[in-house]
């Protein structure tokens, strides 16, 4: 029943971004109670023998009373990380064939990730970019941070074409502390260029997750006949035939996705292709798997 509310087309009907994020994340978390694979937050992790200099507040005095030995309790959630969400606002993100633009889906995804980080007391930040960095919300755990993030996401508008090199060169300056970098984009660029552009973020000790947001019509276009297509970013027009789309384009697109995936894996970057027709929790599940396993 809840799954129905995670459908992107249903979420698009919800007016407030905070409400969308809350709906997605709360429903998703409540579904995780049955899953033992993922633990997070202030969970007990292990005992460690006391060493001089350790904080006595973490000594388990109950164990000491029974065994007269001092052990320290360690928790997984004791270490917060910095989550930076990079949201692509290029013109190509304006495309949508199912009543929902990719940009809107990307906003939901970004908001959900920010809300999830907020629940975990992680410091979440936001960078909206196209050919330039359009918005920047520094990572923080301060009160009202979530609202700032959601406002930033909500106010993001699609603008110029995607030029990854330029904004990512500046992003390094914004991400001074190692953490988790989540890039949400349609990555209409050569995979080699993409990986080469985002690679430096990984090299500074960040965990990098690429959410490749694509519309089903981009992956597998369905044309009823020869049509005139217009490039959303460059404005170029081209007549294409259904035969070409169903054969050559499909092959090229599959190769492109495969190339993206392999190159990301080669650069130790987590890559996840998101189909806007799929529910949002699939992307969140991917995010949490990485978040729980790596940090």
């Amino acid at each position, binding site marked *: 029943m809840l799954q129905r509310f995670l459908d992107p087309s249903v979420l698009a009907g919800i007016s407030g971004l905070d409400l969308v994020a809350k709906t997605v994340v709360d429903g998703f978390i409540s579904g995780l109670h049955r899953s033992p694979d993922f633990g997070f937050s202030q969970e007990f992790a292990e005992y460690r023998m006391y060493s001089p200099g350790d904080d006595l507040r973490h000594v388990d005095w109950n164990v000491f009373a029974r065994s007269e030995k001092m052990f320290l309790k360690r928790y997984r959630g004791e270490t917060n990380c910095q989550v930076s969400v990079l949201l692509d606002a290029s013109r190509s993100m304006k495309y949508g064939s199912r009543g929902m633009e990719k940009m809107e889906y990307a906003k939901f995804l970004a908001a959900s990730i920010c809300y999830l980080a907020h629940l975990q007391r992680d410091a979440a930040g936001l960078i909206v970019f196209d050919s330039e960095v359009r918005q920047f919300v520094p990572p923080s755990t301060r009160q009202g941070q979530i609202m700032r993030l959601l406002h930033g996401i909500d106010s993001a508008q699609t603008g110029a074409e995607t030029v990854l090199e330029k904004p990512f060169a500046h992003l390094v300056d914004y991400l001074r502390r190692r953490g988790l970098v989540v890039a949400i984009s349609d990555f209409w660029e050569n995979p080699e260029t993409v990986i080469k552009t985002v690679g430096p973020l990984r090299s500074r000790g960040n965990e990098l997750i690429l959410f490749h947001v694509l519309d089903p019509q*981009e992956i597998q276009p*369905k044309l*009823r006949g020869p049509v005139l*297509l217009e*490039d959303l970013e460059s404005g170029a027009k081209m007549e294409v*035939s259904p035969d070409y789309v169903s054969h050559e384009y499909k092959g090229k697109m599959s190769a492109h996705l495969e190339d993206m995936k392999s190159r990301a894996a080669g650069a130790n970057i987590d890559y996840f292709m998101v189909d806007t027709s799929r529910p949002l929790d699939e992307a969140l599940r991917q995010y949490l798997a990485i978040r729980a396993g790596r940090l």
Partner: protein
Amino acid sequence: MGFLNPWFLGGLIAVGLPIWLHLLKRHKTDPQPFPSLMFFEHREQSSVQHRRLDYILLFLLRLLMLVLLALLFAGPYINRLTAKGAGKKLLVVAVDRSFSMRTKEGTSTRLDDAKAEALNVLSKLPPGQPAQVVALGDTLQAMTQQTTDPGELRGAVSAIKESDARASFGELSRYLRTLTESTKTPLDVHLVSDLQKSGMPPGFTDVRLDQDTDITFHPIGKVQPNWAVETVIAPQHVYDPKRVRISATVTGFSAPAATRTVTLLMNGKTIQSKSVTVPENGRGSAEFTGLDQASYGFNRCEIRIDSADGLPADDRYAFSVERTDPKKVLFMDDGRRQDAQQFFRAALNATDDAAFQLEVLRPEVAATSDLSKYAVVVLNDLGSLPPGLDSSLQKYVTNGGSLLEAIGPGSAVALPRVPVLDEAIDGTSYASREGERFFTVSDVDTGHDVMKNVERFDGVKIYLAVNVGTAKSRVLARLSNGKPLVLERKVGEGKVLVFTSDFGAANNDLPRHYAWVPFVQKSVAYLGGGGSTEQPTNLAVGEYVELRTGNEKGAQAEVQDPDGQRVLSLEEAAQARNFELTREGFYEVRTAGGKRSLVAAHANRKESDLAVIPQETLDLWKATGSSGPVNASGQGTGSEGNTTPWSLSPFILLVLLGVALAESVVADRYLRPQAQPQETKAA
């Protein structure tokens, strides 16, 4: 070329639909946004060209479909010249040779004049035009096949002989319709006839002609007064010559009042003469009583009048009578119920012709008598039969005799089964005074000869009836309680008729009822071989004489015409069921069953009425065969050329089906790519 429903051509406006779909809508090529064209190439210009070709072909096909649909509904036709228009005609000369054509017109007969007129028509026949000569009577006789030989045609006309048949213009029209249908050729018909009004069929549609038939009338003769012996009522058999009564009706057609002498002749001798006054256009009758001069056997009789008119052939009316002894009816009476014998005798003697003579014997005497000399044997509630009578009756009936049994209470007590009928006797049905008091007759087979004129036994009261089984018999009448009253069964060659009460007045009141006399007379006549079961011997020309009933296998029938010549071939004598009387006179007939009779044939008296068909009727008749106007003389405008509308709808429908098929194929090719991604997805 024309259209049956030209307003449907307004449907051509729908042609604008594909024009809008293919031409106007096509120019609205709004570009569709797409995120990136990085995977597309510029070589797809050819696909647009392909699409345009597809569109043009589809456009033309759809345009053609709409035009064809509009044409189909409009019902196009072209006027095609028929064979008639091409000048090919078949001349048909029909010469009336009916009985009325014997009428004298001056020194010649009407048939002579008709033949002369027919030759006159043939003399104007253009060389090379096919023609045919037919003789008109009650049936059509083709005197020639279609031929262009004038000599053969003239010879055929000369060979036409007078007949005693009546004219049938309905038969002529039927023949002409068949001829038109078979030859597919327009007909130019010349009817040479006295055009008797009586020759027209009852319904005018029977003389309807096909549209390509042009008929021209050549009237022969004039209306003149005619007297004729119209009918003669005479007995077929004479048993007592003194009681014979013969009546003749003399009719005047278009004739003034006159007194005519009516003469009865028998075997060529004048027997009696009487004067009859015939009113204007009316009838007079003469009655002759007594036929003492009749000799045993068949007698050739004739009623003749002295009319002195133009048609003397109808002044004679032939009929035959057979003088014979009355048939014997044996009434077995044991003396217990004298009233039954008296009732039966009184009823039998009430007939005019005294065809049957009643003899009364006691059962014991009858058991030793030769029953074969009796036409009918009657048993009246004998009770137990004397020894030998049962087997004697059985043999008599099996050999063709007839038995009438009254089964009363005496038989119910003494006999377990009805003699010869062989049906079980199961007690009696007695209507008590306390109960229903009497039974009535509720169910009567009025189609049977015995049950005719008995008025359904209305009012007859049956107080006691014997319950007889019906396993082998046919029930002719039932009582109100469902029990049979009259039964019949055929045994061997003979018949048995059973009445389940007695012929006295004690157990029923039938003998005192008016139904008693016709019941007795019809029963005896039916069993004894007279009355309506006998074939009539006075018939009109054109009627048929029955030669066999179907049971006489291999037996020969024989017919001698008025000239004494045998008219049946060997095959006809062995197989023919009927024989048609074709001329007036006496025919000696022996049926396959061996029965001999003298059949008298006379011409149909409708031929005696020489009244002519009104001109309006002739014009109407002519108009049925010609679409053109009829001129004042009643003759058509001829055949200057004739066209018939020829519908093009079947061909347009065929083309439309082909175009629809082509459109489906082209449209399918065009729409095929939209199904392909789904297949890929499923894969």
